[in-house]
């Protein structure tokens, strides 16, 4: 039993709903009690969809449990098929139905329905949403392709040359309630088209069961979101010999690497990606003189595996930040994130508890947090700027304008989204400098007043949290006073470094001397 106040991921059947709702002509019968219908609002309110998710809930009640719930399930399946006339049917159960073991999938298969029926088993007490999405997509693709007779294992990636056509690929993984998938797909399509590569099928987003059957016509697969599509890509590689690209094209370097990888897989020769410098402003903006102040900014990163990994690379290599913390709630991606953290000399935080994440943010004293909506709230409480880089989705993460994360335009969006909160930070610094001027004396606040910079006295109070975590270390009032003279945007870093230094030399009381010693010590190490 795990005490949970808030969770990054829903149960696995929500993942299945994401696949069903992303597609056309698919219906999902979910054996579940009435309260589980709340899930519709994730799609109709957060994603602002104008259609109901294609889901029929059996909404069984306590009084049904004594009787024949199997008949009830069959009744709902029949009605759903008659009413919605899907081309493929997903049948599964949520947490409660899993306990009563009606086996709705087998029931459906035994009904002699004239359409493909995919039975989903998604263990609700051990797995979560992304796993459920991945498993559902995999089961659906496998089942539809296995049913379709033509199985070709004689796949060759340069077939397009022999056939005298342009190479074509599938984009796999984009789904509803996935971070900026809608726009990523457009961006990647655009980029591939510019390189003479056609799109065969995009799935699950917008695909029908008939499209899924066409998947095998592609020369290669693009695994855009490993959380959702990796297991499917692996199966397609094993079963049909279709290779897939593993680089997720978020950031300039990653997009270049992605293009290189796709060219290699497809055996295309021309490998010039200098368009990155004309099609994206990130490289120049990052190089321009006013970006100097971005150098060495301490950044803490938390999100799903894919976006956290991408963010870390961009932060370090493309914006010149210092990554001071990285973590993910995606257990499936824990290995990769741990490896990346090691490269930064860090230990990855793998957790589903937002309070642990908040604690980690506090302890690493970052100047920018890149996280989920929950980290945005935590960062706000801590007075640190934040940009959202990952699901779980919030209505704000589905902007009206085109704003991908992937490709050249994605890099532009990322530059703006990450740097603007810091700009505000700098403005705040100026306000902070002038705060003793009469305009500011009577609590006059800028529109940025909700950020932490103005709350000077907060940092001069004894910080119990820190003393807790750094055992017995404490700042003398005189040390605190000296610290408060340091501009706020480097103060976190100086505090952290000084405490580290104090610990190393075994000093318990930090005064101004310790602070200056520490400064000299770290400067000499540069």
């Amino acid at each position: 039993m795990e005490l949970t106040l808030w969770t990054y991921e829903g149960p696995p059947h929500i993942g299945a709903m994401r696949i069903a709702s992303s597609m056309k002509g698919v219906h999902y019968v979910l054996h579940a009690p009435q309260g589980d219908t709340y899930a519709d609002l994730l799609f109709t309110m957060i994603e602002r969809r104008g259609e109901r998710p294609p889901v029929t809930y059996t909404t069984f009640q306590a009084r049904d449990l004594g009787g024949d719930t199997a008949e009830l399930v069959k009744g709902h399946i029949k009605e759903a098929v008659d009413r919605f006339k899907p081309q493929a049917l997903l049948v599964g159960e949520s947490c409660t139905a899993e306990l009563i073991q009606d086996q709705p999938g087998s029931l459906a298969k035994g009904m002699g329905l004239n359409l493909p029926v995919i039975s989903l088993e998604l263990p609700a007490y051990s797995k979560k949403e992304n796993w459920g999405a991945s498993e559902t997509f995999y089961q659906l693709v496998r089942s539809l392709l296995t049913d379709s007779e033509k199985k070709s294992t004689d796949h060759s990636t340069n077939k397009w040359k022999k056939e005298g056509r342009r190479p074509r690929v599938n984009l796999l993984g984009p789904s509803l309630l996935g971070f900026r998938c809608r726009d990523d797909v457009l961006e990647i399509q655009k980029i591939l088209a510019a390189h003479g590569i056609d799109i065969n099928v995009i799935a699950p987003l917008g695909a029908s069961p008939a499209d899924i059957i066409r998947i095998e016509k592609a020369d290669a697969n693009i695994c855009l979101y490993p959380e959702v599509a990796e297991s499917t890509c692996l199966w397609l590689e094993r079963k049909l010999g279709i290779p897939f690209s593993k680089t997720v094209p978020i950031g300039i370097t990653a997009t270049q690497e992605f293009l290189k990888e796709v060219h290699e897989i497809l055996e295309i020769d021309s490998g010039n990606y200098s368009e990155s410098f004309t099609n994206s402003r990130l490289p120049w903006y990052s190089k321009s003189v006013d970006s100097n102040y971005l150098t060495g900014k301490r950044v803490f990163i938390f999100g799903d595996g894919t976006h956290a990994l991408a963010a870390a690379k961009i932060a370090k290599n493309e914006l010149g930040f210092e990554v001071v913390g990285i973590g993910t709630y995606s257990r499936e991606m824990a290995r990769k994130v741990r490896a990346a953290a090691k490269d930064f000399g860090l230990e990855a935080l793998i957790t589903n508890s937002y309070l642990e994440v908040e604690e980690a943010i506090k302890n690493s004293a970052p100047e920018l947090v890149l996280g989920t909506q929950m980290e945005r709230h935590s960062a706000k409480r801590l007075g640190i700027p934040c940009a959202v880089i990952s699901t779980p989705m919030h209505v704000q993460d589905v902007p009206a304008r085109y704003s991908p994360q992937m490709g050249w335009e994605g890099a532009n969006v990322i530059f703006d989204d990450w740097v603007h909160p810091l700009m505000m930070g700098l403005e705040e610094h100026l306000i902070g400098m002038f705060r003793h001027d009469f305009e500011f004396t009577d609590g006059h606040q800028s529109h940025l007043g909700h950020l932490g910079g103005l709350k000077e006295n907060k940092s001069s109070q004894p910080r119990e949290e820190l003393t807790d975590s750094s055992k017995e270390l404490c700042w003398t009032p005189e040390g605190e006073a000296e610290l408060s003279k340091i501009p706020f945007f480097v103060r976190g870093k100086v505090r952290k470094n000084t405490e580290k230094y104090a610990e190393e030399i075994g000093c318990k009381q930090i005064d101004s001397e310790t602070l200056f010693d520490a400064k000299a010590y770290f400067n000499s190490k540069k």
Partner: protein
Amino acid sequence: MSGATLLKETGPREVFCGLTSIVWLHRRMPDAFFLVVGSRTCAHLIQSAAGVMIFAEPRFGTAILEERDLAGLADAHDELNRVVKDLLDRRPEIRTLFLVGSCPSEVIKIDLLRVAEKLNNELRGKVTVINYSGSGIETTFTQGEDGALKALVPLMQTTNKEQLLIVGTLANAVEDRLIKIFGKFGIENIHSFPPRNSTNLPSIGLGTKVLLTQPYLTETSRELKDRGAEILQTSFPLGVEGSRKWMETAAKAFHVPQSTVDATLEPLIARAQKALAPFIEQLKGKKLFLLPESQLEIPLARFLHNECGMDLIEVGTPYLNREMMKQELDLLPIGTQVVEGQHVEKQLDRVRESSPDLVVCGMGLANPLEAEGISTKWSIEMVFSPIHGIDQAADLAELFARPLHRKNILSQKKPQTT
């Protein structure tokens, strides 16, 4: 004789379960914590219904059952014990802990009553632990509040003093206002249930006269009756008419002279009617379809028809307690179609066929209907907004007029959706 035609329907439903009530109950009693014993689905439901949490430490949470909890019940009880103690260690400000049952905990038969009793023995009054079920296999949406209040009744002391007990969660400001008006009647001994502090429970007994603010408190009122209270049968305090009847019923029970009642209420009514007028203008003759969710549908329909002139196409309700709803049903126009239960697909067919001007529905259905060009109002707003009493009648009407008004402003064709 009832004015309504009562029908029943079964099929797939689209309603919240009782856990959802926690979203407003935890705000009413800030010293209480609601611990759902359930699955990740339950946790996800509450956080989705409540929106992204902005609290560092919310006053509700879920003890999520895991594979190994399903294997052995004895261990599950111990586990829950452990989780509760961890929680109470971290949150010493908690005075009352509600253990809230869910579908999974009911199906695997976790005995929350036993766990609560054991914890109460160990905690010796420092924290009171009680339990109720908000499971979707037994409860709908607002019924969760009924369950929570019912669980509190046994903790109430007995008194035989004459008092008026207002039962059902109200917005604090509205509650203050209503109490003030009763004060003008000369009714002084007034208490509210649930209280604003979980430890501040009112007493109950033979002298207690109960006035229900919400129509979904079936079990709670039964329980209160068993403790000797008299449940005053009346309409619910929505709109001028309903609120007036509601207050008059109390006045009668406390032998307040009619002249005092009139003198107090007439000015309020006159003012409310003036405030209502512009909204009546917008609502009059408009067709209304209420999908079942909050249990407030019948009193709302009565208000929107009788006072605002809307035409009622269909009034859905998740379940119907005829005895409790009798007065309300009588006030509905003859032949009003009241449908208990739901077949969401068939009901939506009827919505489309009748092309209503406004549909009251759950959050999952609103945007799809809007995309079809049908204006909607979320029923969950009714349980969050201060809508009770004569003074609030215009605000209540405005909630329904706003979507119509908006549609007029945005005089565009059916929007393209993604």
